[in-house]
């Protein structure tokens, strides 16, 4: 009776956090202090930004952490006004039973620039009573004034060995057999993303009694959007409109993000060349285009447009 393992096995204390030793060591120094600078955690998904923020808040705020901690989803559709109002009403009150209050804002890079500028004011106004922890995937998408108000911590992808050990620990706890190969293949797919690793593990546990290489592959191929291959085929055959329609449907219906799409496209194309279904020279051209697209998605304003442009490179 546990629900998702990613939540069940989320480390609750700073010392339990996997990877990120140096960051944690640094953060531990803030414990017991009367104040804490505003922090910004940047790094890819699933490397422990939120976990660290929660653990830090619990450690610093102690037993009354729930009363003095607020978590906000900055990219929430409810808009910046709601976020600001919530920040305001939260910061206005004095901390109770704790040195100060902590606000954790997730996905700040998805906030509009205007919203970020508004946030910057809020950060200035309540320095005495509250500290901010911001989290984002790309600090480049955060306006400079906010960056300059924060101590920035870069979270690196978690090392394979560390992920593997954690997975082993979970398996033992849940009473699942897992062979080494199976765990290693999870580590390979996870690419340093602990959340993904644990999700694959739990999904694979549904498939059978033991976690093997096969059951992992089964999960990974099932979890992949089915239409990516179809889309690439259409584009390769010169049917741009067809490919574009699949792309739009996938993104709108399944809500797949632009970054996920690029990764999926990359994996699909890679598999083609590994299976000998695509010439190496064509592959290299495509990789160049995919790499450029990946970069442009971060630079541009509309990931879908960039992906449509990528599809034209397959024609």
């Amino acid at each position, binding site marked *: 009776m546990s629900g998702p393992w990613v939540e069940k096995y989320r480390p609750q204390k700073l010392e339990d956090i996997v990877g990120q030793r140096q960051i944690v060591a640094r953060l531990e120094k803030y414990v017991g202090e009367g104040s804490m600078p505003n922090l910004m955690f940047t790094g890819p998904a699933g490397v422990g930004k939120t976990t660290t923020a929660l653990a830090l808040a619990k450690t610093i705020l102690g037993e009354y952490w729930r009363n003095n901690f607020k978590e906000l989803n900055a990219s929430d559709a409810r808009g910046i006004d709601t976020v600001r109002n919530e920040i305001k009403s939260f910061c206005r009150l004095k901390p109770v039973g704790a040195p100060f209050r902590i606000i954790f804002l997730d*996905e700040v890079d998805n906030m509009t620039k205007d919203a970020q500028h508004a946030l910057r004011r809020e950060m200035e106004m309540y320095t005495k009573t509250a500290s901010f922890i911001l989290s984002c995937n790309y600090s480049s998408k955060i306006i400079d004034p906010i960056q300059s108000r924060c101590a920035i911590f870069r979270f690196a992808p978690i090392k394979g060995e560390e992920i593997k050990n954690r997975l082993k620990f979970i398996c033992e706890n849940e009473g699942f057999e897992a062979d080494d190969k199976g765990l290693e293949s999870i580590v390979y797919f996870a690419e340093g993303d602990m*959340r993904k690793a644990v999700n694959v593990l*739990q999904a694979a546990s*549904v498939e059978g009694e033991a976690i093997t290489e096969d059951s992992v592959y089964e*999960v990974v191929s099932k979890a992949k*959007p089915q239409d990516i291959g179809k889309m690439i085929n259409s584009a390769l055959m010169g049917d741009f409109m067809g490919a574009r329609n699949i792309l739009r449907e996938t993104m709108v219906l399944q*809500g797949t993000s632009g970054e996920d799409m690029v990764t999926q496209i990359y994996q699909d194309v890679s598999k083609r060349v590994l299976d000998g279904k695509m010439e190496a020279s064509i592959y290299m051209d495509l990789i160049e285009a995919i790499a450029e697209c990946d970069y442009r998605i971060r630079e541009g304003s509309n990931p879908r447009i960039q992906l*449509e*442009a990528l599809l034209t*490179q397959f024609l």
Partner: protein
Amino acid sequence: MLWTDKYRPQNLSQVVGNKKEIKIITDWVNAWKNNDPQIPLLLVGPPGIGKTTLALIIAKEFSEYVELNASDKRSQDVIKSTIGESSSSRSLFGDEYKLIIMDEVDGIHGTNDRGGVRAIGEIIKTSKHPMILIANDFYSKRLQSIKPKCTVIKMKKSRWNSISALLRKIAKAEGVEVEPAALKEIATKSQGDVRSAINTLQALSDKDGVLTASDVENIVTKDSRSDIFNAITGVLKSKTPAHVKEAMWIEEDPTLVMEYIAENIPREYKKADEIKKAYDYISKADINFGRTNRSRHYGYWKYASDFMGIGVSISKHETYKKFTKIQTPTIFGLMGRNRGKRNLRDKITEKMFEKMHVSSGEAVSMFPYLEIMFQDDELAWEISEFLGFFDEQDEKDTEKLIKVFRKKKIPKKVITKMEKRKAQMHVEERDRRAEELKNQMMNIIPEAEETSSDNDLPFEIPGVEPAEEVIEEELLEEEPVEEEIKEEEKVEKKEKTTQTTLFSF
């Protein structure tokens, strides 16, 4: 005060140009006045030539008028509730006619004003009152069903010399000195738009100096802004940079223009290398929009505009000699049709944010794995329970949420079984905690009593603290059982009467 308002014509004879059209309108008004109902008038023509002014002048001929324009939300209901009632019935007191003015009919928004056009059609059919409809674009799709039911009056642009004459009158009345050449310059630059001509005159006039032609020349006055369809056609059909740039000079959200161009590239361009090249320019335009958003420096827009305008236009080898219908981006339709699905998704990501601290993007990337996990009946129930799917008011909503991850419902048998198991676990957990707490209390008490005999201040007893800490910790670990623990606490208090003072603060 705006001169356009100050010098707005007050009667038909003051209106500039369009004499023939005005005659038709006068006849129409007179017919109504003689109790001879007429079909509605549809005034069509470019902006700033006096359509609304005409309607307002006509309104004076009637006892009352109702007006709606594009800034109103014009869904079917709104139109029916504001006009519909009054349109089909006439006042009980006297038989005076009410004039109905519908401005900017072609601006009715496709999705926001759902059914708006149909509602207008119905009102036209049932109306017992005079009605004037106003629109800019004669060829607008939204006018198609309305046109046959109306007397269409195409209003022409005013000629530069009549505009110039009007400007001279205004200048005189305002006491500003303007060179005749300057008046001509303003009049021609306005391209028949009287309103913009008057606005320009007001903007440039200086009480103390003479307005010269060169003053006017140096200022960009009215640009002939084309609509989005002209812009797209310009980009796709032309290869001349000057042409394209002019076509791109429109008052629209540039990212919307980009969507339109992108949508129509593969519809117009047929060769792969053309599409590739054109789309690469679109991609570059998007990058510049990204830079604009990031830096809030709108100077990047001009590059974006050139990339998606001139860049796309020169991506073709030759201009295609065929007619391509400019399409609205399919992505809008797709998003509209799937609003329900997306709302459901948002609801789930919100629940996941609350329970699992994941952002919406991360939540969505977990969906495929959840789908696999949901294949297992028991795990499906567990996760649904964990995410609070069962907290929905309506059971149907819960089912909808579960359906996002699995087609079949969770079998009733499994649900009852899991609910039982959960209740069982609850009881066990509570008993375990109670037991634990009791043991701890027992350990402390002898110690506490010992010290209290030494010291007369019970609240300073150090030995009590661990017990309190335990309680708090457990309170925090699991919220749902919070109340039960408190109950336990009370029980403990009653049992250990000697300890009450310690708990009372």
